[in-house]
């Protein structure tokens, strides 16, 4: 387990909610922010705020250096080979839409196939639905195993030589499943398809190496890894990004503007139209530095232990159903469940009245809810600042809910 003093880095955790010390178990929706990130944002706005890539003045230079420095931080974080491959976006959703709108529109024709899975988040479903509708392509779903994992055999069976895009989540925000992205990428490449990775739930919890994965695109959000909202990144292989058209046009992304025609800046700036998310990028870089200073391996280990403890405790409750792999070492810090006789919303309200924050609902995964044959579930998600005491508080809350609804 990580040192519990880590909690002290997160000012927000030091408060009472509804008369009880806060237990925050909703980090999969968004993580809390450490002092180091809040201070980086404050420092930027207090001392360096300026627009980037334009001024000659000193503040402009500082802001540009910090913003481009943040790109280098992301490059190292993903082990990409060049900062040209790192595009700042508003988050995972924007990044996935960019791939569908730019790469997709240019490379997908009627009858081509796009392959996703039943466990995807809406943001990795709808951009492909829209692309399929606009082009006449076929959207195919890979079925899941009973325990909510993916079998390489089924993934492989789904692909044909018409498959052009394979897009899958690295870690499931509901089941906690970690998907074998490296192996799936290999299969996709055999069929000549590009591999897109939704790493929104992976980047906060596990080491990512895009060169080792060999994926073609990968997207993540800053706010889930201790960074601010409104910032994320898209990684794309240079050759692919170079051939792609921007989807947003305006200032910052242009090279030369004529009356009827314009040319674009080089990578990665051609995809960053308008004043970029400067403070966000700086805050996200501070967040990456922060989680790396603790170590992603250590974070992953910490979560495995918490999840193992939580699942073991929860299984002692009668009427509990836990979704996803039974083996805690096969999941990231997420436990999604239902308690018989207590609707997840009621459960979330009872927990909230005890100072415990969990998520209830469909978690932006309606197709997965359908696959699980439930209308809603409750989800406890853990991060580096959570402790076994948090799990104990959750258990108390669950017992209370059971009593209430008996």
């Amino acid at each position, binding site marked *: 387990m990580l040192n519990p003093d880590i909690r002290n880095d997160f000012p927000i955790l030091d408060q009472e909610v509804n008369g009880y010390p806060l237990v925050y178990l909703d980090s999969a929706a968004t993580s809390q922010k450490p002092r180091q990130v809040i201070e980086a944002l404050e420092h930027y706005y207090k001392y360096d705020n300026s627009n980037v890539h334009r001024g000659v003045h000193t503040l402009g230079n500082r802001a540009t250096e910090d913003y481009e420095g943040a790109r280098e931080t992301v490059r190292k974080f993903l082990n990409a080979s060049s900062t040209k491959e790192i595009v700042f976006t508003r988050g995972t959703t924007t990044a996935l839409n960019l791939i569908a709108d730019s790469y997709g529109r240019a490379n997908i024709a009627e009858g081509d196939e796009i392959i996703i899975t039943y466990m995807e988040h809406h943001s990795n479903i709808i951009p492909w639905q829209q692309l399929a509708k606009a082009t006449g392509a076929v959207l195919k779903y890979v079925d899941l195993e009973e325990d909510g994992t993916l079998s390489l055999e089924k993934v492989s069976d789904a692909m044909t030589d018409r498959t052009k895009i394979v897009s899958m989540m690295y870690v499931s925000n509901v089941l906690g499943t970690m998907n074998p992205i490296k192996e799936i990428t290999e299969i996709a490449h055999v069929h000549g398809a590009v591999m897109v990775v939704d790493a929104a739930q992976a980047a906060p919890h596990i080491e990512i190496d895009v060169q080792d994965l060999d994926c073609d695109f990968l997207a993540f959000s800053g706010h889930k890894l201790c960074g601010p909202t409104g910032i994320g990144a898209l990684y794309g292989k240079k050759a692919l990004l170079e051939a792609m058209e921007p989807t947003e046009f305006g200032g910052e992304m242009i090279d030369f503007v004529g009356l009827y025609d314009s040319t674009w800046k080089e990578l990665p700036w051609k995809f960053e139209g308008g004043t970029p998310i400067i403070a966000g990028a700086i805050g996200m870089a501070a967040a990456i530095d922060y989680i790396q200073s603790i170590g992603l391996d250590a974070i992953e280990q910490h979560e495995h232990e918490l999840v193992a403890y939580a699942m073991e405790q929860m299984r002692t409750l009668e009427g509990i159903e836990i979704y996803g792999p039974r083996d805690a070492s096969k999941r990231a810090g997420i436990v999604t469940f239902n308690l018989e006789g207590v*609707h997840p*919303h009621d459960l979330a*309200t*009872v927990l909230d009245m*005890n100072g415990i924050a969990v998520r209830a609902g469909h978690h932006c995964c309606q197709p997965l809810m359908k696959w699980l044959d439930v*209308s*809603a579930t409750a989800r406890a998600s853990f991060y580096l600042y959570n402790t076994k005491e948090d799990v104990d508080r959750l258990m108390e809350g669950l017992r209370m809910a059971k009593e209430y609804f008996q």
Partner: protein
Amino acid sequence: MKNDKLDQLYRSVIMDHYKTPRNKGVLEGSNVTIDMNNPTCGDVIHLTLQVEDDIVKDAKFEGEGCSISMASASMMTQLVKGKNKEEAIFAAHAFSDMMLGKEVDESVDFGDIEALTGVAKFPARIKCATLPWKAMEKGIAGDSE
């Protein structure tokens, strides 16, 4: 274990309607059918009404959702029976006011339904309580067009 705020929300009348819902099912020979859902949480209601000569003769519901939405549906079906369309729509509006913590027109006798006033203090749950009433209003207003 005890929690006063929870007791305010989950009054015994509400729990009773949740556990033993009244008018649950699908009405045979209904002439008004409404399906409504709450996209943020997945609650769904399937409401069937029999409206004759301006009067709601019978009502039944089926659905899936939390205790608040299902208890509210059960109570709503009880209240609406025997009301004319205008009264039913008026009650839907009055109920919505009640959930928003506003003054409620005294001409509607909500009886036990007033147990749901506790929901007004739980902003995230107000939509659960109003879903069945919105469905009823939609069905009846649609029927009068």
